[in-house]
């Protein structure tokens, strides 16, 4: 399959991504020409040591950051050149995010947190859909609780419910178990796995090899370059 063809088929894909940060007087090369394609329904783990560029890659895939060079496509549509307003709409409707710490807005209940992207679009059935999404992660009874009343694991499940509520094309998770004990972390990973098995595309950043095993495929980054493409359960292809 041609490169262009793989991009068009992928849920999310990146070509020749370059990102350099200035840290003091030094330039930090976070990404040095990364190509990646994630197929629809695939669960990909991006791994690597600290400073390898994995979070930067996730941020660029999610339209939170712009690459210095290269291109990102979401379901074949180039998003790297979109405006901030257009990217906000994409994050709201077509992507879901699960972060490591404090994923939830503290003043909203669990249901309101989940409903938030729908509420931004003014959907009248937002709360109804939020309850359904909470039910998917087994938290329908905690819908009226605020983040401070939830455990760390519950908070991450609420975050996952929010990420799923819009039926996004891709869920992006940045160290979703990094702040949890191992048992709770495993519960979250199983939930992600189940979600992926149901056809949801997931890209997860993790530094933990045990977490990566839940994914269909592992992409290993070192110093801003992909050094290993493992797994291979899904139809993705990678180049370095």
């Amino acid at each position, binding site marked *: 399959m041609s490169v262009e063809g793989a991009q068009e088929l992928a849920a999310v894909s990146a070509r020749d991504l370059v990102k350099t940060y200035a840290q003091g007087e030094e330039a930090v090369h976070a990404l040095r020409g990364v190509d990646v394609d994630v197929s629809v329904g695939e669960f990909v783990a991006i791994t690597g040591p600290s400073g390898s560029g994995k979070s930067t890659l996730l*941020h660029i895939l999610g339209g*939170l950051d712009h690459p210095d060079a290269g291109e990102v496509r979401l379901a074949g549509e180039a998003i790297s050149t979109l405006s901030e*307003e257009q990217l906000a709409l994409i*994050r709201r409707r077509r992507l879901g995010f699960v972060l490591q710490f404090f994923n939830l*807005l503290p003043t909203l209940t669990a249901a309101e947190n989940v409903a938030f992207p729908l509420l931004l679009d*003014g959907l009248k059935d937002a709360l109804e859909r939020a309850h359904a999404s909470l039910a998917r992660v087994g938290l329908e009874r905690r819908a009226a609780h605020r983040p401070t009343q939830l455990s760390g694991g519950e908070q991450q499940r609420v975050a996952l419910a929010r990420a799923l509520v819009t039926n996004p094309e891709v869920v992006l998770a940045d160290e979703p178990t990094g702040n949890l004990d191992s048992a709770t972390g495993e519960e979250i990973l199983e939930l992600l796995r189940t979600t992926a098995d149901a056809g949801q595309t997931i890209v997860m950043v993790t530094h933990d090899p045990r977490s990566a095993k839940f994914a269909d495929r592992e992409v290993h980054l070192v110093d801003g370059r992909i050094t290993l493409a493992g797994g291979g359960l899904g139809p993705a292809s990678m180049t370095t």
Partner: protein
Amino acid sequence: MTGTRLLLRTINVRHLLGRRVRTALTVGGVAAGVALVFSISVINLTLIDSFRASIREVAGAAEIEVAAPDAGGFPSAFVERIESVAGIDNAVPVVRSVTTASTDEVTERVEVLGITPEFTSLFPEGGSEEGPAVSIEGDFGPRGEGIILAGPLADALGIKNGEALRVQTPRGERAVTVTGVVEGAAVDLVNGGSAGVMLLPAAQSLFDKGDNIDSIYVVVDPTVSPEDAGAAIDEVLEGSAVIGPPGERGRGLERVFGGLATLLSLSGTVSLFVSLFVVYNTMAMALAERRKEISMVLALGADRRSVFGAFICEAALLGTVAAVLGIGGGYLLARVLIERAIEGFQVLPLGAAGALRVVPSQVVLAFGSGVAVAVAGAFVPARRVLNVPAIDALRPEASYEFAASRAPGWFIPAGIGVLLVSVVILPIALTTQLRLLATLGLVAGLAGVSFLLPSIVPLVVRAARPVLSKAFGPVGRLAADSLDRSPGRTTFTVAALVLTLGLVLCVGSALRSYSTQVEDTASALVGAPVYITAESFSGLGSDQPLPLSFAEKLERLPGVSFVYPIRFSFVTIDGDQGLIYAVPGEEALNRGSETSIEAITETPEEFIEGLGRGEIAISNLMARHRGLAAGDELALPTPEGSKSFRIAAIFNDLVSFDSIYIDHGVYASLWNDDKADEFGLLLEDGADPREVKERAEELIATEGLTAVALEKDELIGRIIEVVEGTFSLGQGIQFAALVVALLTIANTMFTAVLERRWELGLERAIGMSGRQVAIEVLLEAVTIGVIGGFGGALLGSASGWVMTQSMEAQFEWSIAFDLPIVLGAGVVLLGTVIAALAGVVPSRLALRASVIDSLRFE
């Protein structure tokens, strides 16, 4: 202490320097408060000192000044009568006139002294302790009609010897040749250096004084005490003059000025109090931001008292910088406002103030206030340091733990109690003019409101939440949530706005009520369709009144049926300032004036008939002040000696000193005054006021007089302008107070944005656009503005009512409080606009913030 110093140097000061915008806003807020207080204090002192110096310095070595009790002066023959008193070495007559002097480019308000050659004997050669040196270059010209100008005035006018100056006189503008310049410390102090000297006869002629003079400076033989000499002079003059040390004649005016100055000082105090909230917000933010750092230094072994001490020192440092800047800024502000103050405080007959007066105690007080406000504002946030757990060092910075401290239960009774104390203290302070007590009363009032607001504001914010949610969806909800979760910050910001806007509305509504009353009273009393007033008429008299004889010419104008003069004359009665209104009441009414005496007295018939019989009417304030009632007798000083008048009626007035109505004919003959400040023109049936006004204008131009013709409504409008002009300086101060409020809200919104950086980043990560986040921040600011605006409208209306009642009680005025609905709506709008302005930059900050940076914890 070592720990505190170390922490201050290594952490606190570096943070201050690192957060430049916030530090600048905080310092700016406190500095603005200090600047206001300092500038008001400098302006007050400068005006009062200039006034005293104007009176005293000109007296040189004289121990006694014998002054005319009113503007008409007394006969120069008094000089000989005084010289006949045993123990008097010298008696030097002076004519004094405040006027405007112009060149083609410049116009200055000037005090012109008419002196005799003996005047220089008051200033011994080379100067001495009794009187500074005066050096004169030039003379009074070959015919003795020239004017010698004070050096600063000659410089200001840019005029040289031999050139002509246009001077306003009762007979119109006259050209006077400058024939010399006088220099010296004493000269610089007379009317702020804006003074000129002429020979006595020339001045008497120029200012149409006839044979009258205004003061006599008396040098007493060293063997006689000035008190004994004064008593002997009083006996000779039979109570027809004000006798005392030079400056005594100004005491009454000083007391009147004191009341106005007290009110002005209180406006400054509010600003300084409001700036306390700026510091509170900054230090609360600093604590939130450095929580991890604090817990780390605690984990490393620092004791909490050192950390607390470092915070307090940081605040003191901010306060010190702010106080220094505020004092500098206040001095500059005073320089800008002093001219406006002179125009506003027309009760002090000053043309210019000269150099600003600053005494060390003012600087110390302003400096101390700045530092104290900063430390007080920081105290509550700094105390929270004592509760930061060391374990926080090991947690990420962002957390769900809000600093949602609710107001303690004792705040409400404390607030009510302190408010009550204020309500008791303030009227006493205003009546006694004890400025420190008034400041304490005001601070108690502000503190009382500040105690109550933490219980009220969160309730209002919670009530606003559904409204915001409904109107703005999730963005509105998040904005309301943000306000609700930081009740301290929200309350303090709202409080700053409530107090500032409350001050604006309080003064505004009281002034409006007063102005409305003045307008109503003026509308009732102004009974002629056309008036001619001296151009220099300020509402309470004129620098250069018009000659009484002008009435005859006015009466010959086609369409005019009758002309009556009105004279306002300040008179000193037993050392207190009084104002005589001389009006031909009965005659004017008989000839068709529509004056409604009923508007000011319950006994209009007694009033009019009494004045017709040569009796007087006195104001309610004067009746209370002197324990007088209708039927009593009151002695007034006249050039012919003290004369007793029967009080025919009591009337309501709207001035803050004693006032008296008397028939103009009686006044003119007893006081030998041939001037008028205004002429009322009654018209023949069918005559058009506009046409008569135009004819009068032509006559004024033909006669070369400096007068204006006004129709009835124009005169009323001019009176209102004068009233509002008196308060214009206060309005300037209020504007500056609003700037402090703006800084407070801007500071709060910066705090809110920085404190929730992570949260705003998350909102954007999950789909909110930058614009929506910016709107959220702006909505927070606007909500604060709306709540502050409504709070300010409520507080301002209530305090305006209290102030009106207090003015009524203090001055025996009768004012109907005018509920300021339009002004109140304006205040709500003003609060909203200020808040929106203050929220613009922080919202742009939120808009521009990088989502990635916001989500990063390291």
